[in-house]
């Protein structure tokens, strides 16, 4: 399924002629595991009150979220071809107003963890058992709001909240360590009062056991620090910053799809 979703990402972005392939491909395995193995959700009723919530904070990875939503039945797979087109329900960045299954409008980085805290607090107020998952990029941890939110999620002891950081080590113009170093990253989250789980973000066994570990953790929120490869699955996109926010040409897309067969 992960391969299939990666193929959707390539085709969608190539068809749209713009978009962010790198960050969608690095997050693919994290999202595939969630949507196909972990989340309790009901694609026929996206507003089902007991659903687990998934919030995409790194809104530029919308294509991989759309691919997962389509393949789980929120809307027809054929609709993926409308990405970024005028009047499409699939906006350039994730948008809660138009797309079934999208919980939050995102695209300005650093906002998703705060939103997720609100959702998790609501679960506690309503005595509901749903869990809230939020996917961040490592780059967006440069935004101060992420750390405001990190403080408060621990302060509110939100053990029904799981953050996943897609640490592909790159951002728009280069390596994160060169642009604004985040390390020691895991220690920062621990210092902020979080339970941390470090994994290889492309290893399904590790991803699934991390989600289980998060669910078992009581009294504090959990962050899964998933080390990933930007552009994962397509040789010429891997660790290639050029494909942060650039669509492949048709020729490149064909090569990519062949690699993903």
């Amino acid at each position, binding site marked *: 399924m992960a391969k299939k979703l990666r193929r959707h990402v390539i085709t969608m972005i190539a068809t749209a002629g713009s978009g962010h392939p790198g960050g969608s491909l690095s997050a693919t395995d994290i999202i595939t595991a969630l949507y196909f193995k972990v989340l309790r959700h009901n694609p026929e009723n996206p507003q089902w009150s007991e659903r687990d919530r998934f919030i995409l904070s790194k809104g530029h990875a919308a294509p991989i979220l759309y691919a997962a939503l389509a393949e789980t039945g929120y809307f027809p797979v054929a609709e993926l071809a409308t990405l970024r087109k005028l009047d499409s329900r699939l906006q350039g960045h994730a948008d809660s107003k138009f797309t079934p299954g999208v919980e939050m409008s995102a695209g300005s980085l650093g*906002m998703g963890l705060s939103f997720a805290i609100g959702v998790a607090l609501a679960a506690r107020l309503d005595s509901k058992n749903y869990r809230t998952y939020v996917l961040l990029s490592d780059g967006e941890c440069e935004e*101060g709001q992420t750390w405001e939110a990190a403080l*408060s999620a621990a302060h509110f002891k939100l053990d029904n909240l799981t953050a996943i950081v897609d640490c592909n080590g790159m951002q728009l113009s280069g390596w994160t360590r060169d642009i604004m170093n985040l390390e020691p990253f895991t220690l920062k989250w621990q210092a902020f009062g979080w339970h941390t789980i470090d994994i290889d973000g492309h290893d399904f066994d590790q991803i699934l056991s991390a989600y289980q570990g998060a669910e078992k953790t009581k009294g504090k929120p959990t962050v899964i620090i998933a080390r990933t490869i930007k552009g994962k699955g397509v040789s010429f996109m891997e660790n290639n910053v050029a494909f942060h926010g650039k669509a492949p040409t048709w020729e490149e897309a064909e090569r990519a799809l062949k690699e993903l067969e």
Partner: protein
Amino acid sequence: MAEASTRETYGKTLVELGRQNKDIVVLDADLSTSTMTSFFAREFPDRFFDCGLEEQNMVGIAAGLAASGRTVFVSSFAIFASCRCFDQLRLCLSQPELNVKIVATHGGITVGEDGASHHAIEDLALYCALPGFTVVVPADAIEAAEAVRVAASDYGPFYIRLSRPKTPIVYPEGYRFTLGKAVTMRQGKDATVMAVGIMVAKALEAADILARQGIDCRVVNMHTLKPLDEAAVVKAASETGAIVVAEEHLAQGGLGSRVAQTTAREKPVPMEFVNLGDRYALSGKSEELLQRYGLTARDIEESVKSAVKRK
């Protein structure tokens, strides 16, 4: 005129609403004893969240709670509830049209001695720039309570600006507020003063002075800046032929801009503007600052005369 505190009224009204509606939750950023959300916090500790000095995070949390079915009130000082978290207001509340009510106290320069860092003088421009937001500046404590009740029952994002000091009461008890419907406080045929907030009382004072000089001045409280009561603007322009707009705000982007946009399109008439101009204010007592920066009844009086002269 008798005076009362809009923020204290807010605090009490919030408690009353909290008793009626269990879905109401309140967020504050370590200012609850000033914004008076502390009253709510005391009665409903489970539905009150102090977010600390994290205004950006607070707006995001509010969005998450609202998306989960809550009616969320968010309070801080007007300066921090606008400038400090504008991108969050835009993408987390305005664009998805979530049910969050920003009720900010300490609007304008009447904050006083704390100085420029604490004077919210651009908040109305910022909030009026956000599609879908309803923007209200009550004229007194009675109207503040009414506006807060309406915000609690109407779906969608609201901004309500209140003051730090006690302000004159301009309405009788029992006044009923209608969102988006301007209130004629005093009839007149020679000119109209359109005002919001503390400037409504000052406009009434100016109208008294002008009456003694033979100028019959109408006073209209434009409490809802957005959506603006354009019909009231056209009516004032048509019937009195001159408009003065008075607000405790910068010249740009507030009520003056909004009224002028309407008259320019519908019914151009001579206009004057009573506001702070394009500058920051200093520390000082509220009344001293209003004098220094041209926000007194006397300033309104002079502006009305200029506008009438240009008719």
